[in-house]
């Protein structure tokens, strides 16, 4: 597939002896929103974290299979720092650093060697603008980021990711800690961002997956049970298990 940004082949993942992912293969299309759904412990978050190797942090974890990012194997020679720069991540709970709003956004560019203040200014403004929070914070860039509301913090975190110019953005239940209003805003933002980025989002909220994603992958017990167009998954899934899950029934 030419449009494939990430291409996962026969991925197995182990936490110690526990096999958390079984033989997962998946193509993630460019400039699309792909939602990963499934019950708790199904491996969706684990899978997400294999994509920018955040799982390397877990002791005793092991990966088999290949993940190609733009055709290169990220578990091969691909440099992990470069990978994480290209494949950004937004977390469940907003996690701004205990610094000013400006420094939060500038943190990424700075650690990647950009020191010129003007360039940083530009990056900060652009990122905040893209994350649809510029208007709310432009007058208090030097205030602590922790003073923002939860929803604002999450958009700030998205802006922080945008500042290092990623290609793919992974989101791990980015709205589960937010109220409905903030959730709506983030969802709108995701809709906006997919013009420029490839987005993969884990969500336990089926409605959310339905609303914002183009493709949906359903994980169960570490297996990729079904993947397809979101419309198909929600309207006419081929697997009984998928249907049971999305319709809130089991067994």
């Amino acid at each position: 597939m030419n449009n494939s940004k990430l291409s996962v082949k026969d991925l197995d993942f182990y936490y110690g002896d526990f096999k958390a992912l079984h033989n997962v293969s998946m193509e993630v299309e460019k400039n699309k929103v792909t939602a990963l759904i499934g019950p708790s412990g199904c491996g969706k978050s684990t899978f997400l974290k294999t994509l920018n190797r955040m799982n390397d942090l877990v002791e005793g974890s092991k990966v088999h299979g290949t993940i190609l990012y733009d055709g290169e194997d990220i578990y091969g020679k691909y440099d992990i720092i470069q990978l994480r720069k290209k494949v950004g991540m937004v977390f469940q709970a907003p996690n701004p650093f205990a610094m000013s709003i400006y420094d939060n956004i500038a943190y990424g560019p700075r650690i990647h060697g950009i020191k010129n203040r003007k360039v940083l200014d530009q990056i900060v403004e652009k990122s905040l603008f893209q994350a649809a929070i510029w208007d709310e914070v432009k007058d208090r860039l030097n205030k602590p980021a922790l003073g923002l509301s939860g929803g604002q913090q999450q958009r700030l975190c998205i802006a922080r990711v945008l500042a290092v110019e990623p290609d793919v953005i992974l989101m791990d239940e980015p709205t589960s800690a937010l109220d409905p209003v903030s959730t709506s805003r983030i969802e709108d933002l995701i809709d906006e961002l997919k013009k420029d980025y490839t987005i993969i989002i884990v969500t336990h909220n089926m409605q959310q997956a339905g609303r914002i994603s183009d493709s949906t992958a359903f994980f169960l017990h570490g297996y990729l049970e079904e993947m397809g167009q979101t419309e198909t998954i929600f309207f006419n899934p081929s697997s009984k298990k998928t249907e049971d899950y999305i319709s809130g029934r089991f067994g």
Partner: protein
Amino acid sequence: MSILLNTQTPVTDISIEALVNSEQRKADTHYRKSKRANTLATITLWSAAALTLAILVYILGFIIYKGFRSDNILETDYINYGTIESPLPWQSDDTIMIVNSDVRLKEINGDNLESLLKGKPSNWGNINEQDLDVIPYVLDTAEGNFGKKTIIKNDVESIAAAVENQVGAFGIIPAADADKIDGYKLNVIPVWSLGIGVSPTVLEIKDNKKMRFIDGDMLKDILRGNISNWQEIGGIDLPITLVIPPAGSYEYNAYLELAGISEDELPDTGISTGNPAEYIEQINKLDGGIGIIQITAAEANDMKTLKYQYRKTGRNIQMWFLFEEPKRAGRVGGVSSIIINTIYMVLLTVLFSTPIGIGAAVYLTEYAKQGRLVKIIRLGTETLAGIPSIIFGLFGFIVFVDYMNLGIGLLSGTLTLTLMILPTIVRTSEEAIKAVPRSFRAGSLALGAGKWQTIYKVVIPAAAPGILTGVILAVGRAVGETAALLFTMGFDYRRVENLNTSARVLSTHLYQLVKEGISFDRAFATATILIVIVLAVNVLSTKLVVRKY
């Protein structure tokens, strides 16, 4: 993007490529730098942790090692070397010493043996720090200047039987009769009687240098003729003149054994002598002369002797140490009463502090409304926690000892300690109680339970492991505390009789032993006991894994 757009204008293309290249290079350099910094930082952090670990291992290892194994450099007039059986200096025949098996004795030198036989001292304490009466037995054939208490028997077997049965008894029997004591439960003790005789010139002071002692290796080298000048072993510049004892004499055999050589290997430089008198004279007369000799003989002939330095290793702390009462400021005996005092102190302290501590914690977490009172109580607790123990000591001294007239003793000490560890218990209990989810309380209250019912039946049981951990940690702290007890609990090392009796505990005991320089071996042993308690406290407190809700 712009690169793609500009492909039709090659000029711009090149400049952009150059720009991109330079940017790329800059990024690469930065990238390499940050990677290197990362490695360096990791190494530094590892080292810091390793250092911390090393400090602990060293402290614990050192003290525990010394606690179980005494390892001291000692100096004596006598050679303590190998298995040399010596004749008693005042007897011509070889004799051996047999000792009751309860007496802790590994070796003895001639002087000590002689004084024991004379009945001075009459207690083993001076010899081996053991509080036992000395009961000497000798054969009626033995010659010597014996004390009044020395019991004379007429056969070896009866001596052996008496020594076996009487605590503190020992006997002197001919070496030839050694086979007669087979089957008796008693110890045979080697007796040292040899010393190192030198000519007075060796001990002269020159260039701020003086020959002071000699150790086993030096002696061996000298006896083998490997050393020719005193300078080589720390003495003055003076050639060594080795005097060889008369062949076949006791000293001669000892010489060979000490040097570890056969008769043929005797050094050529050595000056041979024919009889004991000549031997003694040669040593005395020759410049830099040296020879091994019975101490009594040396004393009799006014001969100078060199100190012999040796390393004495052995078991230090042993079971008896725990179960014997200390005597003579701890110089003698064990620490049994001190351990008991420590236990009393801990029990009383826990008894006083735990209910108050838990009560305070419960009040703070469950009852107190956020307000000035809570702030004051919390501030009070924190301040109390920060006050140095010496100030507690002073306070205890004025209030409990003086003002309340409880005297320096167990009660004053434990009350002082109670105040000291109260914050620890309050804080850990508070944390344990706070860690019990609010939902537990809500759940209980929503079932119609009263507040105290809820606390008593749900909250405290759930917090119990945490509270217990706190109490144990507090005990650990109490056991180790010294400064607060100096002026409040006193130093009486006997077992406490009542609450007002001055009482020495392990920590104060250790302090006394070190401060008064009584015995470092005892100090190490006491420190080891303290450390074992600390280890036990730690193991206990971590074993009580605080429940995760």
